[in-house]
């Protein structure tokens, strides 16, 4: 029976050779990921259902990465960290990355990649919608809630319905002004926010396989914005190189069968595409940057699991070098490693951090920060009628803080160009 890559990975996790689309199967979980917002309630349910003395099914398969509400004075947020810390200690969790120590990593999805937890052919569940990010590594990654996560903590298993897949093929050579963010926003405009509900979004084509891992992660990261169950790119030599540099663990490479069945297929050539934004207030509200150019903005935000990786900042630096921003511009590295790289990575002989500071940007500490608003004292949080151009992933009303603000989702190139002019600006004006 012909299967897609997603079917093959789920079949393996279900100890089967084949699984049918639409079938509900019990899966053996390779990794359960949680963070500071959803970890504590997950732990409560775990204790309630399995007993206060219960032990997690496998301490090597639980990864706890606090990242959401970190640099805040909010007492409840601190309490969440304390709860995680206590649980990690009780359970002897090796993969707990504590806040306020040099083990702290930052945004969970980026840290998972950096720490070598993403292995092709494996199954990852996380208490976060952007767990689909990991699919860039030829694995199955999807978001779940607290109850499901607690169930996994105790049993190491979860039921899932095998999804049908939608294929997105991108041919052509990526021009310097086009990014993975533009590709996914293009798709979202075509399929809308429920076009991929309960489906796998599979990406391929020469343009996709020319992308470095961090750009592939940006693509699969926003599968959830189309309602996608998971986003996935088969692992190739580039993926293997990234993985082998960070992990000795075994992995398995899968590909979709040539005659696998798909719900639908979309075919693009990147030479026909241009920089785009998602206008307020929906990730599928697509417009070319050219068509909305000149719209005044009050803030530019470059950060998050979607747009706060080193590759994203290299793009922004190319535009910002030698320039000055005319609006508040927040540079929020996703992880500690990215933050350090801003100091060591250079563009035309100047460190990225220096480029940003010289341009008048504020560089923040690594966390999810204002992508989702956060507590009132979060750096970059939107206020009043802010108009923000952001490299983040969602722009529903109130997403970055204020219900009266508008957020334009964009690539790091567009966010950087717009920061300089104080208006939505096509990055081609600067490249």
């Amino acid at each position, binding site marked *: 029976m012909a299967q897609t890559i997603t079917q093959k990975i789920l079949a393996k996790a279900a100890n089967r050779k084949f699984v049918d689309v639409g079938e*509900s199967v*019990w899966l053996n979980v390779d990794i359960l990921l949680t963070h500071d*917002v*959803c970890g*504590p*309630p997950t732990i*409560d349910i775990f204790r*309630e*259902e399995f007993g206060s003395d219960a032990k997690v*099914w496998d301490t090597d398969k639980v990864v706890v990465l606090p990242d*959401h*509400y970190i640099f805040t004075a*909010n007492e*409840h*947020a601190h*309490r*969440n960290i304390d709860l995680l810390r206590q649980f990690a200690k009780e359970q002897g969790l090796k993969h707990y990355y504590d806040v306020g120590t040099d083990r702290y990593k930052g945004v969970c999805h980026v840290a998972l990649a950096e720490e070598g937890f993403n292995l092709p052919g494996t199954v990852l569940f*996380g*208490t*976060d*919608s952007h*767990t689909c990010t990991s699919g860039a590594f030829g694995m199955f990654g999807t*978001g*779940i*809630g*607290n*109850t*499901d996560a607690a*169930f996994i903590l*105790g*049993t*190491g298993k979860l*039921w899932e*319905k095998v999804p049908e897949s939608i294929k997105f093929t991108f041919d052509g050579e990526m021009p310097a002004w086009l990014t993975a963010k533009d590709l996914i926003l293009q798709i979202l405009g075509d399929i809308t*926010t*429920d076009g991929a*509900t*309960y489906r796998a979004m599979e990406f391929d084509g020469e343009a996709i396989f020319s992308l470095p891992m961090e750009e592939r992660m940006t693509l699969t990261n926003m599968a*959830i914005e189309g*309602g996608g*169950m998971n986003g996935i790119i088969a692992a190739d030599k580039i993926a293997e190189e990234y993985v082998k540099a960070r992990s000795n663990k075994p992995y398995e490479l899968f590909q979709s069968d040539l005659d696998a069945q798909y719900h639908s297929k979309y075919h693009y050539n990147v030479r026909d595409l241009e920089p785009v934004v998602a206008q307020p207030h*929906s990730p599928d509200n697509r417009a070319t940057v050219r068509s909305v150019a000149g719209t005044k903005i009050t803030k530019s935000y470059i950060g998050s699991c979607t747009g706060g990786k080193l590759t994203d900042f290299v793009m922004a630096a190319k535009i910002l070098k030698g320039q000055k921003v005319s609006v508040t511009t927040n540079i929020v590295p996703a992880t500690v490693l990215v933050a350090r790289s801003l100091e060591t990575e250079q563009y035309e002989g100047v460190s990225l951090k220096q480029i940003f500071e010289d341009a008048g940007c504020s560089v923040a500490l690594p966390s999810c920060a204002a992508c*989702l*608003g*956060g*507590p*009132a004292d979060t750096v970059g949080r939107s206020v009043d009628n802010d108009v923000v151009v952001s490299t983040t992933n*969602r722009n*529903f*009303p*109130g*997403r970055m*803080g204020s*219900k009266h603000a508008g957020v334009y989702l964009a690539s790091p190139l567009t966010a950087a160009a717009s920061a300089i002019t104080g208006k939505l600006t096509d990055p081609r004006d600067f490249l």
Partner: protein
Amino acid sequence: MEKIIQGKAYVLGKNIDTDQIIPAEHLVYSLSDPEEVVLYGTYALSGVPPEQGGLPEGNIPFIADGEVRSAFTIIIAGPNFGCGSSREHAPFALKVAGVKAIIAESYARIFYRNCVDGGFAIPYETAEQLNQVIKTGDELKIDVEANTIENLTTKVTYKLNPLGSVFNIVEAGGIFAYARQENLMAQS
């Protein structure tokens, strides 16, 4: 599982995302401490822009000032209800506010799973665009066995999609209750 669910309708539009259902700033209260749990009810649906809450009129708050539970216990919504984040705090907040059932044209996957596995409000789907024909405040009656919903105010009955493969989990009250029932909780 109740055989009949009766209550007042609160009508919403499409793409009601989890930030509207429970804004992120509230994701810090305990979900088990009884005093803090009520806050989830207080802030349920507080992210919905006022003119979009309580259709077709709008500007009808889901929770009245100073209250922690809603006068409305059945939500009627358009497609893609619960899209956005995986936060289980969303269906939880609706349950704390007193919601017993949601009837939407369609759901986002994670919200749907959370509703079912967490034993929160029953997530019904329907092919009919009920948010176009039911008004906020209408008295509704769901017949769980017949899979119908009757608008007692207008005297019209509509069909609900059967719950299908998740019926057993919903009936048991959530994934843990179901797993115990089926002896699936053995740890490896």
